[in-house]
């Protein structure tokens, strides 16, 4: 009797597997072409505004996958179904081009990132420049991990150029990516943070720009993947972001434009 009920239980678990068909990836026969765009997470707000406009203009559908540039690059290298890739750092696109995972001729600089010094309004702390990080009330400072996050690299360079790196280093906390770094600040775990201008415009956060001459430019590049079945549409999306419709939106969300321009 035990045996029968136990087997019944196993079947009860196993049967749905046979019955429940897992949702399938959308087939190529969809009425409107669907573009899958992989992008760095600092693009969240800007692309939320740009994607619907592109969809209206072209009739295409865009599936946006946001994540850490490093992870997304590894996935594209391993055959992820992306049509276009917007990296937070041009280096990742160049590496993918070298391994033929993206089309070199499609490589486009789409933005130049800016960093800001941010505090929470709640804390009542007002910092006007990097030197204010010396103040004793600033117990902890969050930056993105300078080893692999482009904005973290820039934060470190700025602190070094300002001659503050050695002094503030013991008080630094590293975020995994730039959104994570901002969350340290929002949660009150740190008194100050150096984050991207593009994500700093949120309620409760005050920020002052950090002089761009203190660090090397944070050039961000996009490219069409080699495995994309609709490279023309993917390239059209990249041109849309850097074109007359996308540019003002990107600027509004804090992405300065590279001097060489779009395409």
């Amino acid at each position, binding site marked *: 009797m035990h045996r029968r009920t136990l087997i019944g239980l196993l079947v009860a678990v196993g049967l749905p597997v046979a019955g429940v068909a897992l*949702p399938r990836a959308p087939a190529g026969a969809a009425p409107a072409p669907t573009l899958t765009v992989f992008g760095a997470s600092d693009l*969240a707000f800007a692309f939320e505004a740009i994607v619907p406009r592109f969809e209206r203009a072209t009739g295409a559908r865009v*599936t*946006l*996958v*946001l994540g850490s540039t490093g992870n997304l690059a590894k996935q594209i*290298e391993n*055959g*992820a179904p992306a049509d276009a890739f917007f990296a937070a750092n041009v280096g990742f696109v160049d590496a993918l081009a070298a391994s033929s995972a993206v089309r070199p001729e499609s490589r486009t600089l789409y933005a130049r990132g800016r960093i800001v010094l941010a505090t929470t309004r709640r804390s009542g702390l007002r910092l006007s420049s990097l030197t204010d990080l010396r103040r004793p009330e600033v117990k902890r400072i969050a930056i993105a991990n300078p080893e692999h996050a482009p904005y973290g690299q820039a934060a470190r360079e700025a602190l070094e150029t300002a001659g503050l790196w050695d002094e503030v280093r013991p008080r630094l906390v590293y975020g995994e990516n730039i959104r994570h770094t901002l969350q340290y600040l929002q949660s009150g775990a740190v008194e100050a943070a150096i984050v991207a201008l593009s994500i700093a415009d949120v309620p409760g956060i005050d920020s002052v720009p950090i002089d761009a001459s203190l660090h090397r430019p944070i050039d961000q590049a996009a490219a069409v993947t080699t495995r994309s079945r609709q490279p023309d549409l993917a390239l059209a999306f990249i041109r849309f972001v850097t074109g007359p419709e996308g540019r003002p939106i990107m600027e509004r969300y804090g992405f300065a434009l590279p001097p060489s321009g779009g395409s």
Partner: protein
Amino acid sequence: MDLFPLRLSLAVSVAATALTLAVGLPLAWLLARRRFPGRDLLEAAVVLPLVLPPTVLGYYLLTLVGARGPIGRALGAVGIDLAFTPKAAVLAASVASIALLVKAAQAGFASVDTRLEQAARTLGRSEWQVFWSVTLPLAWRSVLAGAVLAFCRAFGDFGITLMVAGSIPGVTQTVPLAIYDRVQANRMDEANALSLLAVGVVALLLVGLGRLARLRF
């Protein structure tokens, strides 16, 4: 609210639990009942997924089953895409949870009196029949406990799924990935609603299963 992540997560966790049972029960039985060269190595390999950080494990898996990996290429040759599909999410969830099932079932099998199994053998039962009519019925509590743990771990997997299946909305974005995505986008209301809903549905399922198990056994 978009309920796709919840439906996907339930389907993926059920499939992963079934896969885990199919692979894990024979493994647990081997570890509990047989002595063979490399047994200690196998036992260590089973718990390895609990030791490695999930994203790292996910990256290794991706290099195996991705378009350029040996398994991915072999599957691709027969027309099967694994990486970045819901099947990859099942694989990720299974890898994450198999150790929990195997360790629980192994302890359950080991606690079964071998004399009872011997008695069945003297009555002419084959090893296969001994397992189904003596060992498994006496160890079912441990197996069920392991399966429940495996289901929950499969449902909650984040790191391995993120790497191997990606966080593609409407295709492979499970509940944990969807919640993280909403948090990243500062849509906390949606994140909270999805968290509450997922916890509620899984709690209901487990309470139901608990009731069923007590009634039936």
